[in-house]
């Protein structure tokens, strides 16, 4: 593998005192918060994965009873919820945190403490929704919580309380983070970093933040309705009072569909970083890539009802949503072709990161095509709520989002830790993952079209599904093995990986101009940016010569290939350089804690202990407000 001239890893410029638990609890450094996100999300990936393993074990053969019906229902609900809200979104957030400031040449995010707050709300909210499974009280209404099953009349237990409140909590985290990143990207780009010079990952992240701030309020409102129904006796989704379950479905999917693009676009962004680097060629059709991302996000708001073709919306609505859905295939296809064109004519190297990136292209396409197959209602009515759908969304989610994120992890691990992950183990991980993924999810196309419904904890023999299910289950175990290999590789490489240096892959963007791991302040000097590929301007000018740098500075490019690669200077501390660094603080964590306690009060209320519930809520609320006050009145840096 190409290790550029061995630059000794700059382990701890400026961060000698930044160790120990307390430093992690109080950090407001976007990089460390990114790492926290990464670890936490990987932990939940293990949880969600083990849930999947149990699911698949139960379904290995007909009429098994590995788990009970009720527990199975909790498993798939929590599996979906975990993977979506506690794994893929936070893994993306890990990269937003770590990379966006580095890619745009900033020293931190716009609101460092808000950033810490987002993380802690996520971490605590994740526990809030995950822990109940140990008491058999985990949410059991499906990840889309259809009313009235999720309401008080038919879902009267505690289970869906945790879901409603947990999602509400997680929403706070995502929203706070989104405002933060929008501001960061708009306002903290280094001089010369125009929008059209932003790295594609930052671009896709930018789009995603808008999807978050527009989609999450809708689910927030819907969850409030459900929450009020459950706790305060309102009638939003109560059938007897005339409540309309379809309102829940519409609100959920107005959120839910943009949500799936929230899950995939960051992975698209990561892949758009990995492919050019290892092809030694700039991204093909940069502008088109940026615009198609925007297009996907925008169209994503007009297609939600394709999840509801079976509810009987009438032919006009069915047709409109069907055609709108098909349209999304166009900008997505543009992305696929541009990626291939990026590689075409290049000089391709295949480290594990590249393999995963290519894997995404190959696998996502399968999921995308089955997606288009769902978009035609007459045909979807045979597919909806069967394993064919399960196949579709695992191809796009596992074959797309997770593969892309793996590509990102292998690619950026050297930047984050200063060391490479083992390529050898990585190969095993990749191939087992690739085979396991196809073995698990491809047969689901068959079981689905041969009539197997989703969300069934058992099925009868003789239905023609046995073989496919057995294949799926075997594939899952392969995936488990590959995941464990990854985990081992991940942890052992942190200490024992080969040293990586600043720019191990010969990549084009700013984050590679600084040491690995980067110093606390990122850039000793805020760089002046003159093109999309500053590092290539510097190191491989032939690759970028043909790209129109912005006309204003086209003339000065020669001397202004101006990204200095600071190797020595950045061994100095922030203090020595006179760079203000935000103070570490525990307050965001405390506010987050207050919020979670506040929400827990409602559970106590449901349990019927009114005084204790009031005490919990008032206590949590007061604690939150107090900590918030302390936060707002203390100086940032």
């Amino acid at each position, binding site marked *: 593998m190409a290790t550029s001239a061995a630059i000794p890893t700059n382990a701890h410029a400026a961060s000698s005192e930044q160790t120990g638990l307390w430093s992690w609890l109080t950090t407001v450094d976007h990089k460390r918060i990114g790492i926290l996100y990464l670890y936490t999300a990987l932990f939940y990936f293990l949880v969600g994965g083990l849930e999947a393993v149990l699911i698949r074990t139960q379904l290995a053969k007909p009429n098994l009873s590995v788990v009970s*019906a009720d527990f199975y229902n909790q498993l798939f609900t929590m599996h979906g919820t975990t993977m979506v809200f506690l794994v893929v979104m936070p893994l993306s957030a890990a990269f937003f945190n770590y990379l966006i400031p580095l890619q745009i040449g900033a020293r931190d995010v716009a609101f460092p403490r808000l950033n810490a707050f987002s993380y802690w709300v996520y971490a605590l909210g994740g526990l809030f929704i995950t822990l109940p499974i140990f008491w058999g009280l985990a949410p059991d209404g499906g990840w889309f919580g259809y009313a009235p099953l999720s309401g008080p009349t038919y879902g009267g237990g505690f289970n869906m309380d945790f879901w409603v409140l947990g999602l509400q909590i997680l929403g706070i985290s995502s929203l706070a983070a989104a405002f933060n990143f929008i501001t960061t990207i708009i306002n903290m780009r280094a001089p010369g970093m125009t929008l059209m010079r932003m790295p594609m990952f930052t671009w896709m992240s930018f789009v995603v933040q808008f999807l978050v701030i527009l989609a999450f309020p809708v689910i927030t409102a819907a969850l409030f309705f459900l929450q009020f129904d459950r706790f305060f006796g309102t009638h939003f989704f109560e059938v007897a009072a005339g409540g*309309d379950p379809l309102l829940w479905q519409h609100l959920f999917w107005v959120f839910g569909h943009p949500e799936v693009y929230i899950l995939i676009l960051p992975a698209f962004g990561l892949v758009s970083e990995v492919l050019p680097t290892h092809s030694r060629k700039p991204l093909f059709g940069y502008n088109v890539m940026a615009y198609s991302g925007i297009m996907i996000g925008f169209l994503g708001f007009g297609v939600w009802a394709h999840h509801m073709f079976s509810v009987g919306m009438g032919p006009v609505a069915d047709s409109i949503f069907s055609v709108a859905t098909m349209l999304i295939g166009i900008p997505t296809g543009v992305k696929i072709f541009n990626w291939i064109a990026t590689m075409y004519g290049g000089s391709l190297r295949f480290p594990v990161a590249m393999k995963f990136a290519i894997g995404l292209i190959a696998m996502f396409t399968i999921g995308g095509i089955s997606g288009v197959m769902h*978009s035609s209602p007459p045909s979807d009515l045979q597919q909806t709520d069967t394993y064919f759908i399960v196949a579709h969304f695992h191809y796009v989610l596992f074959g797309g989002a997770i593969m892309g994120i793996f590509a990102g992890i292998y690619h950026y691990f050297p930047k984050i830790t200063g060391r490479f992950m083992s390529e050898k183990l990585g190969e095993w991980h990749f191939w087992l993952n690739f085979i396991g993924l196809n073995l698990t999810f491809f047969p689901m196309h068959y079981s689905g079209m041969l009539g197997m419904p989703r969300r069934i904890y058992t099925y009868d023999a003789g239905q023609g599904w046995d073989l496919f299910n057995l294949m799926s289950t075997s594939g899952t175990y392969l995936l488990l093995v590959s995941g464990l290999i990854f985990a081992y590789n991940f942890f052992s490489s942190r200490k024992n990986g080969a040293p990586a240096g600043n720019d191990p892959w010969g990549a084009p963007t700013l984050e590679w101009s600084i040491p690995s791991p980067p110093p606390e302040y990122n850039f000793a000097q805020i760089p002046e940016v003159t093109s999309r590929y500053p590092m290539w301007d510097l190191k491989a000018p032939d690759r970028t010569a043909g790209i129109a740098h912005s006309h204003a500075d086209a003339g000065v490019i020669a001397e202004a290939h101006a990204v200095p690669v600071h190797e020595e200077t950045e061994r100095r501390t922030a203090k020595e350089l006179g760079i203000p660094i935000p103070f570490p603080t525990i307050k965001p964590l405390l506010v987050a804690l207050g919020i979670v306690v506040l929400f827990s009060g409602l559970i106590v209320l449901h349990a019927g202990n009114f005084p204790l519930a009031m005490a919990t809520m008032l206590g949590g609320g007061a604690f939150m407000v107090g900590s918030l006050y302390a936060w707002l009145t203390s100086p940032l840096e």
Partner: protein
Amino acid sequence: MPKLHLRRFAPAAALVVALLVLAACGGEYPNSTFSKHTELNEGAVFIWDRMMLLGTIVFVIVEALLIYTIWKFRRREGGPAPRQIHGNAALEITWTAIPALILVFIAVPTVRTIFENQRKAPAEALQVEVIGHQWWWEFRYPQYGITTANELYLPIGKTVNFSLRTKDVLHSFWIPQLGGKRDLISNKVNHIWFTPNAAMEPSALNGACVEYCGTSHANMRFRTFTVTPAEFEQWAAHQKTVAIGSPAAIAAAAAADSAAKAAAKSPVVKTASLVPTAAPALHAAPSSAPEVWVFPAEKIGPHAWPSTPLPAVAFDESVLAAGDAKAGRELLTNPANLGKAPCLTCHVIKGETNYATDDNARGPNLTHFGSRHTFGAGLFRADAKALALWIKNAPAMKPGSQMPSFGAGEYNPLIKAPVPAAAGLDDKQIADIVAYLRSLK
């Protein structure tokens, strides 16, 4: 190291593909969605085929381009430096336009079929009301006055218009072989219609609930029997009668007898147009209820015979064999036994004294229970053993079932306690009830 391990991957991939192809060719697929038994599904299959074709083309092109590219441009010692092309407007337009064009070929038949499928059903269609319950199906034939559960009879060659509603949460009605699904939604009546076409053999098909509806969603199945119109009429003529052995049946038989004696004409079903001319003879015999006709058990394929394992609850076979239908009827219908066997507070047996009506009954209508092949929403064969265990402890056989346990000493999850010995049914009583239920042809 940086070379593609295609070879390592190839055998595994080949194996998967081979297995899948084999799988798709051999074997029986009783729930396949690709059948052409109805016009509804023909439309679906037509679009599916087209999408499959176009999708495969797109897939092959993309993957071929991808593989070609990674093979051709892999880095080689002394290979050429990359050609630095960064974009190409003509290409961008091409790969925007071609997918758009492909989509037109999908969109047009899609919209056409949507409007076709959602036309109003023909007026002369057979009406069937489907009512979802957690976790069983109620079927009504309003034109015949029939209420039944979990087994659906459909005449071949005749359009059926289903109106779908639910008593509780959302469910979804699906018979994969006959067409797409439609949800049962609270506060709304949904519709779907199709015509099992004349070319279809009489057959037993599986159906399922496909909208997650709680604990036993997986156990909310049903059977559909497509039968000839003559058979259908025969079945229906019997199903609409009151229960065998009920006071109403005895009275009706007496009335019919005297009517026959008065040489009045035989009772003709309202929907005479449905009946092929030869059929009336089959049940025109005066002085008795129409003859029972059910879908013949021999014609039911293995896929439609449930093999759900029975719980390990003991039941003495000899006691079971000695069940007495008369005693069973007494247990169910004598108000004195209501404390022990409150069956008729939740179930309706037409002709007996019921405490529930069709509209507020919590359990399936049992009037002609003996003519069903399966029970518990398609979970169990309607044999004596399974039935006995069911009455003893239904929730142990079907998680979450809303039917309480009645066996003395059995745990009843609805009251979260065992049934007191005094209040519960002993095995003998259960055997009697089973005998009675099975006699309700």
